[in-house]
């Protein structure tokens, strides 16, 4: 896979629902359309919640990795 350029990283580790989703919604507005936001979270709900959030808001999930209790999600701002 080609290297993905990350425009901004959101450290949402230690936040619980609805924290990661709320902060993702705020952070995605701080990047330009077409850019990628990296979200790091420890809430076990982060993966399904941010996937659902992306479906609802029309943004795109490029990649999700879960390792050592940390979920790393790459979100491309589409709108």
């Amino acid at each position, binding site marked *: 896979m080609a290297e993905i350029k990350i425009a901004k990283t959101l450290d949402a580790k230690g936040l*619980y629902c609805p924290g990661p989703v709320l902060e993702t919604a705020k952070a995605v507005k701080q990047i330009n359309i077409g850019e990628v936001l990296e979200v790091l979270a420890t809430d076990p709900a982060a993966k399904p919640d941010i996937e659902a959030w992306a479906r609802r808001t029309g943004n795109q999930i490029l990649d999700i990795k879960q390792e050592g209790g940390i979920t790393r999600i790459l979100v491309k701002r589409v709108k």
Partner: protein
Amino acid sequence: MTSDNKRKLSLIVFSGTIDKLMPVGILASGAAAAGYEVNVFFTFWGLNAITKKSMEGMQPIDKNYEQFGPVMMQKMKEMNFPMWTQLIEQAKEVGEVKVIACSTTMEFFGIKREDLAPFVDDVAGVATFLDRAEGGITLFI
């Protein structure tokens, strides 16, 4: 009707205990972040919970869960979890959220507009709420 990317969540907040108000904050802010239009209608004990005076102190917990109150509050503090009022404020920052106070309840309890929390947008009644809630999800909490 509501298009696919325009959904609504409306909450009728009847209860004034912290165990019910927390999910109100969580649902409202999560929905607002996901682009839902959110309407929060505070009535009866719920309205009583959004007076400046009652928000200053600790809000009561449901009698049935009283024994869990102190442990739960301690845990929430450790988690650095926001208070439900902060969640409502955050919801308003990220999305389209209207907070409505029930006019009839205000009269029942002798509450004036200036007694209410700053996040209240309007004082209105059932017709306004139903009009705004039409076509979306509505929960009575």
